[in-house]
């Protein structure tokens, strides 16, 4: 494969951090992704004419390169996040709700939330410890025992069907970032940067997808539309890298912070294409970018739908490792975010059609 001079050096400066903050703080629970969609449109105004929103709500951007014989590469990052939806008003500012996507009910109690498109503030309360019994404290509260409390004033500003998310603002903690919805705003952020600095040797087909958290639904129609030569999902994956309690070797860390972008071999939805895995790991090695395998396991990314579209698309996923996914506050390393962007840019810059050649071990 030909090697191109890489003139773009990704970094997380003030401007980038501002964009990432707006993305993380935005409310974009599956099925109502309009806030993130608006930011994507604003950031990618230069692509007007090559950008549209499809029937599902995916934002699809085509950025053609200028070299001859270009590979058509689909990159997907999902705009939606897990959250909640109001289902019934109990009066007195209290609302019953359901969760949207995978949320551990134990993560909900006591969290400040924002509700609806006006971001009406509320809280998921629970009985104060003063009044609880020992038995109550020993059992986790279930979602149907919890209420979102927006207060008497707030109840006039929200309605059944409104979505809610955690009221968390992105914060820099030294070398780390703490925020909500970093799954997958980090992917959205990196995809925006890649579009703005796209190499000329490929056609970059960018899909900012919807409803990933409910079953990769947006990616399905996005991939059908693009029918690409190869596909890559850019996502975020759990880092379960804390020591085991019993001092035994942690054999199921999934990924670790600081070890760089996590390249997928197999998850519940996709077996990664060996040619693409090799391309990514070799790029990282030759560029001196740290990388790690995401341990094969369950779960799924947009690649799960991309690879099954039309007559088949070689696909793989690359994720930023993150602690505490799908909670009010995840934690990532800035270096892992930047290294993921570096890897993707370097890898795309050296890509040509020879990647599709059958290989002996694939």
């Amino acid at each position: 494969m030909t090697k191109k001079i890489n003139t773009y050096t990704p970094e997380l400066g003030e401007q980038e951090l501002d964009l990432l903050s707006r993305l993380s703080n935005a409310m974009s629970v599956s099925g109502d992704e309009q806030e993130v969609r608006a930011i994507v449109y604003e950031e990618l105004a230069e692509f007007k004419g090559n950008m549209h929103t499809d029937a599902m709500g995916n934002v699809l951007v085509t950025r053609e390169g200028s070299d001859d014989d270009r590979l058509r590469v689909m990159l997907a990052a999902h705009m939606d996040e897990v959250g909640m939806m109001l289902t019934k008003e109990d009066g007195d500012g209290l609302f019953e709700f359901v969760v949207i996507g995978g949320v551990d009910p134990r993560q909900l109690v006591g969290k400040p939330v924002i509700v609806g498109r006006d971001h009406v503030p509320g809280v998921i309360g629970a009985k104060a410890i003063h009044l609880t019994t020992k038995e109550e404290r020993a059992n986790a509260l279930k979602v149907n025992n919890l209420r979102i409390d927006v207060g008497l004033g707030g109840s006039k500003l929200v309605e059944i069907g409104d979505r809610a998310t955690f009221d968390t603002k992105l914060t820099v903690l030294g070398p780390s970032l703490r925020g909500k919805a970093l799954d997958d705003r980090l992917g959205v952020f990196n995809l925006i940067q890649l579009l703005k600095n796209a190499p000329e040797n490929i056609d970059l087909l960018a899909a900012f997808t919807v409803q990933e958290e409910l079953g990769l639904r947006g990616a399905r129609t996005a991939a059908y539309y693009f029918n690409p030569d190869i596909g890559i999902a850019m996502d975020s994956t759990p880092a379960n890298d804390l020591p085991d309690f019993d001092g035994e070797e942690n054999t199921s860390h999934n990924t670790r912070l600081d070890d760089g972008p996590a390249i997928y071999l197999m998850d519940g939805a996709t077996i990664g294409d060996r040619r693409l895995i090799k391309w990514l790991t070799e790029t990282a090695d030759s560029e001196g970018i740290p990388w790690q395998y995401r341990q094969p396991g369950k779960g799924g990314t947009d690649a799960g739908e991309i690879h099954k579209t039309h007559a088949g698309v070689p696909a793989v996923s690359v994720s930023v490792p993150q602690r505490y996914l799908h909670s009010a506050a995840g934690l990532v390393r800035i270096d892992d975010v930047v290294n993921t962007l570096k890897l993707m840019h370097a890898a795309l810059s050296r890509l040509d059609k020879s990647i599709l050649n059958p290989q002996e071990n694939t």
Partner: protein
Amino acid sequence: MATNSLLNTLQMLVETPGPSGSEHLIRSKVEEEIRDHVDELYTDALGNLIARKGSLGEGGKRVMVSAHVDEIGLMITHVDDNGFARFIPIGGVSPLTCLGGRVLFMNGTQGVIGIERLEPNEQPTLAKLFIDTGAVSKQDSQIGVGDVCGFERPFMNLGKRLVAKSMDDRAAAAVAIEALKAIHETPNEIYFVFSVQEEVGLRGAITAAYGVDPQVGIAVDVTRTGDTPKGVKMEVALGNGPAIKVRDSSFIADPRVVNWMVEEAKSQGLPYQMEVLEAGGTDGAAIQRTRAGVPAGCLSIPCRYIHTPSEMVDADDLQQCVSLLTGLLAKAIEI
């Protein structure tokens, strides 16, 4: 009895490792076997091997025949400091059939499966199992995260019955290969698909069916039987002939396709049995739902002990499946 050609093909197929996503070896074996007997041969983006036989003639149809060449297996998730490897399943793997098992990695490394100490009455889980490749440390290990292995067990010919790992679905691949070789004149444009990643969700057949765009589809796969001591209640038995699938939990076979199979079996005087499978799925489901829909069914080979390292089929059943499939494909299809 099965012909020597069928037995040799079968043994070659079942002794080649090829868990889902790592079908390169088995694909090239099949390619070698059929290259001289087909009109067109190609591998698609996911790795399905697709062989065309014949061109559309008077009263003919474009038919897709799918037999998957992947098998269940394991993928390494972690190698610990002492060289023991942890894994997750590729496809439906039971911890019970893993115990004491031997595995063969795609890079040639061999290993055995061990288990942590269990509490009294504790059921084994895959998380409690590990592979011992004989390595004395992590550095010494010849395998790492992402390496893939299949279960290792030699082919066993018991006369009437045949035993091997991966009879699911290499028995069907052998049937498809024999039918492919037996067909010389046909008005149909037949696409034999040796599909990948069936065991993880019919993934290869989904894209192959889209690409082939058939007018009718047949999956060839194994099905379980109800003929073992205190086994499941099911009509299908080893040695009672090809099983014609009516339904499983992935799809309802198109009644026209079912009828077409029944009529062909009757006209050849072959024994056959109707298969109603409670759980399980085949490539037929993927073919049926591609594009705007395709009439699809499944020709099943009765098989005991599915997804264990010792899957058993009947040699006569196998040979009769070849006859039935060949008969179905060799003449104009009216459904």
